[in-house]
């Protein structure tokens, strides 16, 4: 069935330079998955255009031929959003990688979607500016992918998510029409379509240019590292900092397993016997920072921290952060495979949820390391497993699914920043009733009536949910019956 690879390639070779069309089986393999390697599919072909005009031609052709299109940025996504479609085109935006303009006076940068997140801050640095959202994958991930996932990072507590730092995108619709969404000012006329595009996981259109806000580089940054003997107490300290009216530039937490892994990996200087550590960064002018870091220190001690250290100098500050930013690969060294979850919960549920995750870990017999954007209540439990052991991947997925359903049950969400993709599609059924899901499908149809853009991702069909529900409500009992439903 479907279209055959050779003839589709021939059609695209008429439109694009030959080095933009990849269709030999062995050359397609590197594109078969994104950062979620448990799911793999070989696309029909991969296209690597150089310009937005070429992307437009590709889309027009796909639209005419009704060929599915999956966009790909840097392929660091952790939810399988860029997992290829076997009967479709995998369209990489990686070669659209130019910084078009840095507007120093208005503190804006206009960039192509394939520009790496960190490259924006590097280009802005000579002007004393930077781009605030800083996913841990920032050396590799693309701005287009950040927009598509509404990516977050350590600094999002104070400076907002991608959504808050993008003012305009140029969007190509599935039929190849180019639209400007948003503006270079602080608002745009009509409905705020930018809110729909941000986080839409390549389902509504292709982002071919982005205008982001830049911020002045703060005069000084300082970080406090607090060690705790108990994870729950660390969780309460997070709430305490916020309660005292402090909005740190970053507020991150790691549990013992992840901080030990990070210590072994990058020698960050973490106290390896602590049950958990908190990293709390403040930024601003010299005086402000001096004053605030003292307050933070006191609050942490008052909340039961065993020890609070502040970085001696910039090198030590970078080292403290290096541990956190490398937490995923560090934990990755502990087992052949790890599965990264991304639920968000109200901060005051942190202690309870951590305890319950610990119990699940015992039940499934799989270790779980915990790293969080604590200030935002965004958890990243990393489940360790070995895919070579029969049934262990399934067990890890089941464990992960249970964590996400717990997040929903305590009033949170299944994904804070990594997106639904293919990975959390079943848990969407736990989070949303049918009318909401129908609404999502209807919104997609407004942009993409023939369902050609990233089909099958992000929003489950109602039929799928009916099946999932039947599987998960064992003997008419919901999971976590003891928790109040939100």
């Amino acid at each position, binding site marked *: 069935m479907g279209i055959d690879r050779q003839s589709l390639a021939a059609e695209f070779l008429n439109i694009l330079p030959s080095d933009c069309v990849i269709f030999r089986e062995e050359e397609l393999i590197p594109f078969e998955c994104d950062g979620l390697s448990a799911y793999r599919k070989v696309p029909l072909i991969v296209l690597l255009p150089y310009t937005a005009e070429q992307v437009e031609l590709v889309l027009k052709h796909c639209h005419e031929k009704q060929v599915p299109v999956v966009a790909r940025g840097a392929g660091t996504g952790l939810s399988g959003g860029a997992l290829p479609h076997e009967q479709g085109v995998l369209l990489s935006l990686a070669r659209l990688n130019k910084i078009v303009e840095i507007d120093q006076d208005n503190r804006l940068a206009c960039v192509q979607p394939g520009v790496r997140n960190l490259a924006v801050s590097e280009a802005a640095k000579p002007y004393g500016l930077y781009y605030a959202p800083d996913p841990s994958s920032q050396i590799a991930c693309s701005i287009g992918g950040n927009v598509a996932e509404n990516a977050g990072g350590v600094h*999002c507590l104070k400076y907002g998510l991608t*959504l808050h730092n993008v003012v305009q995108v140029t969007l190509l619709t599935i039929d190849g029409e180019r639209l400007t969404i948003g503006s270079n000012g*602080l608002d745009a006329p*009509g409905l705020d379509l930018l809110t729909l595009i941000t986080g839409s996981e390549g389902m509504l259109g292709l982002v071919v240019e982005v205008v982001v806000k830049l911020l002045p580089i703060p005069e000084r940054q300082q970080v406090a590292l607090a060690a705790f003997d108990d994870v729950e107490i660390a969780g309460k300290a997070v709430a305490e900092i916020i309660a005292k*009216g402090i909005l740190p530039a970053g507020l991150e937490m790691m549990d013992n397993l992840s901080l030990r892994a990070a210590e072994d990996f990058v020698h960050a200087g973490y106290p390896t016997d602590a049950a958990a550590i908190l990293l709390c960064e403040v930024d601003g002018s010299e005086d402000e920072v001096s004053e605030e870091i003292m307050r933070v220190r006191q609050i942490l001690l008052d909340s039961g921290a065993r020890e609070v250290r502040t970085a001696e100098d910039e090198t030590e500050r970078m080292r403290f952060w290096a541990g956190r930013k490398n937490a995923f690969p560090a934990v990755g060294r502990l087992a052949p495979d790890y599965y990264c979850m991304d639920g968000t919960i109200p901060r005051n549920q942190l202690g309870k949820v951590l305890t319950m995750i610990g119990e699940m870990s015992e039940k499934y017999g799989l270790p779980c390391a915990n790293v969080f954007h604590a200030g935002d209540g*965004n958890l990243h439990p990393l489940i360790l497993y070995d895919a070579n052991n029969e049934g262990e991947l399934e067990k890890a997925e089941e464990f992960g699914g249970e964590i996400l359903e717990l997040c929903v049950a305590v009033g*949170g969400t299944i994904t804070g920043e990594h997106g639904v993709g293919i990975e959390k599609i079943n848990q969407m059924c736990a989070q949303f009733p049918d*009318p909401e899901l129908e*609404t999502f499908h209807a919104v997609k149809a407004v942009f993409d009536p023939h369902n050609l853009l990233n089909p099958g991702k992000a929003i489950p069909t109602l039929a799928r949910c009916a099946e999932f529900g039947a599987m998960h409500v064992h003997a008419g009992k919901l999971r976590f019956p003891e928790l109040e439903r939100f």
Partner: protein
Amino acid sequence: MSGDQDQSSRLQANIKDAIAERSCLRLMGSGSKDFYGRGLGQQKVLDLSGNRGIVSYEPTELVITARGGTPLDEIEAALEANGQMLPFEPPHFDGKGTIGGAIAAGLSGPRRPWGGSPRDLLLGIKLLDGQGRIMSFGGQVMKNVAGYDISRLMAGAMGTLGILLEVSIKVLPKPVEEHSLIIDRDPDSATRLIGEMIADSQPITASYSLADKQAVRLACNHQRLGAICLKYGLQESSESSDFWQQLRDQKLDFFQQSKPLWRLSLKPTSPLELTEPCLQEWSGGLRWLYSERPATEIRTLVESQGGHAIQFRNGDRSGDIFHPLHPRILQIQQGLKAVFDPHGLFNPGRHYSDY
């Protein structure tokens, strides 16, 4: 609070009736924005102000959830008691404005570039749509990327997509102290100086500029203020906090004219060749203009700088009030309208004449 009431069932019944009768509805919070948007139609008014009350507020979570009809005053009083605020500083004048209306109108006050807008701070909603369905989108947590961001789409939609039964909003600690500085320079060098202060990360939370008067508001203590004055050679002013409130609620003398008032949204440094004076906020990103010029002339001028213009008050309200849209974008908006309000019940013609 006395008067707290969940009227979602009644409102749901109202929608079902309207569908059955094939009638349209004009959604009203307190009606303080009747002047805003395209002319009001003859539709039946659906009063949303009875559906009110704070549902939950936990200061350490930085989130407040309230029913759409809750007066802004009530919300701000609850926040004030905990040293917090609505960062978008919504205008509310006599305290009647509702939180649902503030989100639906999507307007922000002087703090906007530094504190965010209603859409930036909206975390979740409970929506009653045009088929009478009650749905929840977003939530009470800071980060949530499950499904499309339907809640934020409602900010600024002027109630054309549905009724906001409940909204959850991110709140922030309120600065302990704020002070004003008058910048006694010619407009151009004052604008440059404000730009310089922003680039230096000074704690600016509002800016004002009209003819030969320029001012900024800073969130800092006296000591820091002194240092800032010294650094830039400025005088501390005796401007009361009232000034910024009057700016927010458009009570300053400038706003008492009867000509059409235009709200121009632009890149802060965009030049505009105009003879009439513009009052500027948001370090130039927002400009207010009283002018009798034809709408098309103003729109073309602003559009040539990549901005857009709203005919905010006065003048003929039967034409385009909001900036006309690219045809495909209009088509998308009509498509979205059909998703949320397929019978065209809510506020027909209030936003654009096409829906």
